């Protein structure tokens, strides 16, 4: 009886260790980068782009900042986690044209652990931007 118990426990332990060991093996983290949308919005000042960029970056990521002050170049990072720091970031660039503006989106993510790929992040940002620009 004792021998059977020991064997069962050993088998259970071995099986679970192998199972959990396999599950916890992870692919190496890789940088993912996306050249997001670029578009020209007619009949709008660049300030509208800046407002929408700040709003979109703040809603999808956090702490959107305009680089250098009144440049139209915005960036933000994902909330850092204790193990990795920020694992996603994005930039929105607003450039004034005659009676219009040009806006571009660029995104980067470290996958894993980021749940969003860079493409997904840029799609979210473009959607949030459009909502804010209306």
């Amino acid at each position: 009886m004792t021998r059977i118990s020991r064997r069962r426990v050993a088998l259970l332990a071995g099986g679970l260790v192998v199972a959990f060991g396999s599950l916890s093996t992870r692919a190496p983290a890789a940088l993912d980068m996306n050249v997001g949308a670029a578009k020209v919005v007619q009949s709008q000042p660049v300030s509208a782009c800046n407002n929408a960029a700040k709003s979109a970056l703040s809603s999808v990521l956090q702490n959107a900042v305009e680089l250098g002050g009144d440049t139209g170049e915005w960036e933000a990072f994902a909330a850092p986690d204790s193990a990795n720091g920020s694992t996603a970031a994005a930039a929105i660039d607003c450039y004034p044209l005659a009676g219009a503006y040009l806006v571009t989106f660029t995104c980067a993510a470290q996958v894993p652990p980021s749940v969003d790929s860079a493409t997904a992040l840029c799609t979210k940002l473009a959607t949030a931007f459009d909502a804010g620009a209306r």
Partner: protein
Amino acid sequence: MNVKRGLSLFAAALVLVSLSHDPASAAVDLSAGIRHVSDTGSLSDCSGKAKAALETYLPGATESSPGSGEWFAMGQNIATGAASSGATVRCYPLAKGYVVTFVCAVQLPANPYGAYALCLDIAHKFYGGPITPLAAMPTATPLPTGCATTNLIGSWVSDNDPKLTFNMQLNGDLTDNQGVSGNWIIDGSTVTLTYYGNHTLKLSPDGKHLSGPGYNLTRRC
């Protein structure tokens, strides 16, 4: 009593196996904010320079769609085999000349230099300016071979049971012939083997034999 002991061993092994697979911490570093306006030149001029500037630092620059003027390239950390740096150079035609923006991202610490350093060099390559050499990308370290006395990497066979074999890996993992995993650590010639509990063994001066209570192993080398 036996069941209790077994469960304790299992719990210890589970914790060790989980810990051994924790990934190294890493973070994304992004650099935006470099923009250049040229009063002269066409979109194709900008594209040609964008491709050349990117390929000075990253291999295989591609245009996101032909004629778009949006260029992109990624660099790989050879040691990890994963992408660790990337950059975009985006050109847009103006009534006179063009505007070009530079955005870079790197994964730290896998990449040996930051996103700003990469972007500044790409931008300066594009429109002129001082170039600062970037730190070299680490190269793959060849796996140690033979019966080294500083590690246990390789195949081992039990002296008591030739069917019981172990494969010891570079990262300190070990796996037996039935797929059961554990860990190894070496300090001088003292080896701690975590495999159904912790075992303290001694490595022979020739690096070929491990011996101690419960286990006597010989390395195939």
